[in-house]
């Protein structure tokens, strides 16, 4: 009986959690005035199907950086329109523009490609349609390696040292141990 009560509680909890999070805020949809844009340019973000009079945070996200454009309030119809400027320092590549609810949930997103279109076409015409690597590339070809700062913490060095020393010790132990195995 006691277990049945616990099971019922867990079941109710499991049902309640998704209901609660789903009811906190709905989702929406955003679209962009341009799907491809160079750094430093402006684009317009159109929002629709959001909750009425709802505050969302607009962000530009990529693997390496997140830029917060700011907050925007939806209208009575759950829509908004916001002009934003792409940072001039953004690297060419694929980005997402996301709408984030106050609780941190991403409730809408659209893909934006940042590319230095004019410079690329001027240097290597037709590059965007090159087979195999559509969209890959920047304006200047270079055989040099990038200067990438690699942050290695003391913790990192300790883990690497431990793995290396443990492997070497285990290997040496296996090689030093003599066994009578000759079958002849």
């Amino acid at each position, binding site marked *: 009986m006691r277990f049945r009560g616990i099971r019922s509680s867990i079941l109710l909890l499991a049902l309640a959690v998704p209901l609660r999070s789903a009811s906190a805020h709905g989702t929406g949809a955003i679209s962009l005035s341009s799907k491809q844009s160079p750094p430093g340019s402006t684009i317009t973000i159109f929002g629709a199907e959001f909750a009425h009079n709802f505050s969302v945070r607009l962000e530009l996200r990529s693997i390496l950086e997140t830029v917060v454009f700011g907050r925007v309030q939806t209208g009575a119809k759950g829509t908004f329109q916001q002009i934003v400027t792409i940072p001039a320092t953004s690297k060419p590549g694929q980005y997402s523009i996301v709408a984030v609810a106050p609780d941190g949930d991403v409730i809408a997103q659209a893909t934006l490609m940042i590319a230095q279109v004019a410079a690329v076409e001027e240097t290597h015409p037709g590059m965007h349609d090159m087979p195999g690597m559509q*969209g890959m590339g920047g304006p*200047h*070809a270079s055989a040099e390696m*990038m200067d990438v700062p690699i942050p290695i913490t003391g913790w990192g060095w300790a883990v690497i040292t431990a793995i290396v020393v443990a492997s070497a010790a285990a*290997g040496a*132990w296996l*090689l030093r141990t003599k066994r009578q195995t000759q079958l002849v």
Partner: protein
Amino acid sequence: MPERDRATSPSENDSHQPATAGGTAVENAPSGLKATLRERLALHALDYPIPPSANQLRYMLGGLTFVGIVVLIVTGFLLDQFYNPSPLAAHDSVLYIMTRVRLGNWVRSLHYWASTVVFITVFLHLTYVFWRRSYARPREVTWWAGVALFLVIFGLIFTGTVLRGDQEAGEALAHAIAGAKLARALGSVMRPDWAQSTTLFTRMHNIHVSLLPIVLLALIALHFTLIRVLGIHAHEPKTERFSNHVRKLTGVGLLLFAALGTLAALAPPGIGHPAVEGVEVTKPFWPFLWIYSVENSTGMIGMVIAPVVLFGFLAAVPLLDRRDHGHHRPPRLLLALGLVMLALYVGGIIYGVFAPLKQHMGM
């Protein structure tokens, strides 16, 4: 079977294995964890006889290649959790691995150095097997499986280079496309228009993480099975247990891993700038420099001819030496041909290092 081969065959002298009745061990129940595991995991099956020379480093090159492949699989699995195979995002995701993932740069570096070591050990293994004439009957298929493994490892290194998404990667992919066009129908799969729904770059990722590893593991299984059945090619009357060889190989493998870990920490590979199409400003990764050298004199057709000549020769080796047992070295003509191939291969790599940059596309 001749006397020298019989000594190394596992088909005889298996008296150390436990007696069985209907396939079930009839020994008394073992006591202790070690004995229990030994029985339950059938570890006694690893006690078959092999020649003691198998524990020498030159005989361990194949085993060390396998150790390197294990390191590659583990590190590759970790890297792929953070890698984005889209042409637009690939380069950034490698930068992300290098700068944001904990120990990411070390894991990537381990992957790089393990691939380098695997290439070197498999090359030395192949050379030593050729020198010892271990390709001869009845081991022809073992040899061919090894040659195919060498080819697959080339493929893995090539696709791995492309996945960096930097300038060298872009040029490598452009060369592959040009080579595929030269190969006509045979190269159709490597042409970008073969699949309209995705990019060739993304397909290269799929080939690197699924197709080639599956083929690699299947070939390793075939290679190992044939070695188990046919025995290690050595001319020794004495034998010892294979389990002892595994122990020693594991020991050397762990030392190798420690060396790789140190190398990975002290000399991590860099990454070039994102690829720009239509220009050639880099040379390929050093295992491919011999092809680059051939291209310098023949143009793009060299990248098709050079591999065909090398792997054609390797595949033909057992067919060019049909002598029976009793010979420990390849015949003089074949040996001379092998030395010429080796000189061209190593010489091509050295030449490629020092040769001036040259535009091959359109040659």
